[in-house]
């Protein structure tokens, strides 16, 4: 069926709150999706679930045509097929940029010997090639041997993206990947992440607070509120009233302008 994501009636709850309410969602391969919604809408929960770090409390979920099972039972290659760009970057501060990006290859080691070599910091020529390309794509080649804790916020953001690209995932998930950046840089990086969708049919799902960016870099915008899907339509059809409904009752700074509305 070639669906990157197929959810039916998926719900999730934490001890004190319901995070997702009966979500139905199908995403074809190579499509770019933006998740829009206020804080606490369930964006991060949905993304963590798609990353197989949470299991649904109800409903059925298929990710890259494989059922979502308990995370303990998820195979390494299934994890490797889904890349995640963390909001807080989640880098190893004392390691070099190069090794941080190489960490993206860890899920791809096959067999005992290459696994053993990876523990000793030795990787295949192929891995080095892929890392070099990810560094070049993110403009980090010159910083490859810098330690991660010696970078600016924007540079760290790019390392997190490069690690995800080096992973060569079929599905890229990004939790507010540009929330800490100025508008120009934000647009550049979103362009970089979503370009993988057109290049090699990678599916991209990112969450954002910014309706204009969400519309510009996606094929579909999904509005989430209180753990439920409020709307799901192409970015060009998202109206100002959709957005104001989404953010109704939330502080005005999250209620940003809509392109072309």
């Amino acid at each position, binding site marked *: 069926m070639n669906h990157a994501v197929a959810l039916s009636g998926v719900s999730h709850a934490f001890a004190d709150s319901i995070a997702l309410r009966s979500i139905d969602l199908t995403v074809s391969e190579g499509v770019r999706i933006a998740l829009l919604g206020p804080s606490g809408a369930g964006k991060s929960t949905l993304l963590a679930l798609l990353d197989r770090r949470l299991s649904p409390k109800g409903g059925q979920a298929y990710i890259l045509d494989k059922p979502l099972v308990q995370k303990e039972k998820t195979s390494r290659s299934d994890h490797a097929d889904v*890349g995640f760009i963390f909001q807080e970057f989640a*880098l190893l501060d004392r390691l070099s940029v190069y090794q941080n990006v190489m960490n*993206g290859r860890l899920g791809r080691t096959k067999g005992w010997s290459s696994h053993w070599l990876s*523990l000793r910091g030795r990787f295949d020529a192929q891995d080095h090639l892929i890392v070099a390309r990810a560094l070049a794509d993110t403009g980090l080649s010159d910083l490859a041997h810098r330690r991660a804790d010696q970078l600016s916020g924007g540079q760290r953001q790019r390392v997190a993206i490069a690690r995800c690209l080096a992973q060569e995932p079929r599905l890229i998930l990004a939790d507010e990947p540009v929330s800490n950046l100025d508008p120009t840089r934000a647009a550049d990086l979103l362009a970089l992440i979503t370009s993988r969708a057109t290049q090699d049919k990678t599916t991209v799902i990112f969450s954002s607070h910014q309706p204009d960016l969400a519309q510009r870099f996606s094929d579909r915008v999904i509005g989430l509120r209180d753990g439920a899907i409020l709307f799901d339509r192409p970015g060009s059809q998202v109206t100002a009233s959709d957005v104001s409904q989404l953010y109704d009752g939330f502080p005005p700074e999250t209620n940003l302008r809509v392109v072309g509305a």
Partner: protein
Amino acid sequence: MTRHLIWVLIGGAILWAGFSADIGTDKLGSAAPRLGNFLARMFPPDWSVWPEILKGLLETLRIAILGTFFAVLLSAVLGVLAAEALFPGYIWRPVRSGLAIIRAIPLIVVAMLMVGSVGLGPLPGILAITFHATGMLAKFYAEAIDNVASGPVTALQSVGASRAQQLRWGIWPQMAPVILRDTMFRFELNLRESLVLGIVGAGGIGLYVQTYVRSFQYDKAAAVTVAIIVLVLLSEAISVKLQNKMK
């Protein structure tokens, strides 16, 4: 009101200590010239004993090295067991309590017990240092494990890294500098503390301090003391240098 009471208590404690101890004013008075006489007999230090000094210092160094080595091995096991992040409370709590008890026993007491059980020489010294240092080092290791940030480890899990890879590339890079620093700190302490082990017969340079003072050869004791001071300052300087290098 309570503040006055505290001052009265402090003053009372000092008076009680002073009057009940056998240090009358007459003794205090005569102590000064005797101390001066003692110091005069220490000078000039008699460096003819340098072969003994060297032998003693090297033995102390060996005790500190082996004691630290075995303490590291023990702490690697106990530190993991004492980590809140890895084990449930019914395991780490008793382990930590045990470590606290170990820390509460002074090294010199441990050393005397070890001499009593295995006899004189460097072996009881090594055992005492191992035992004593483990109490602190295992606690430090456990804290290093507990302080590992989970974010980067989760990221590697998400990448598809195996458990071993998560340990090597997610946990170890965060822990290694802390563990190295703690171990070096403990080695420096071990070296300092093992200097006195010889006094109770547990090997090392302390034996010579003991021997020379007991036989009234204060000039030789002075030479040993100077050698100890140099060693301590040297180890401190090296330790500081290494720590600055490892930030």
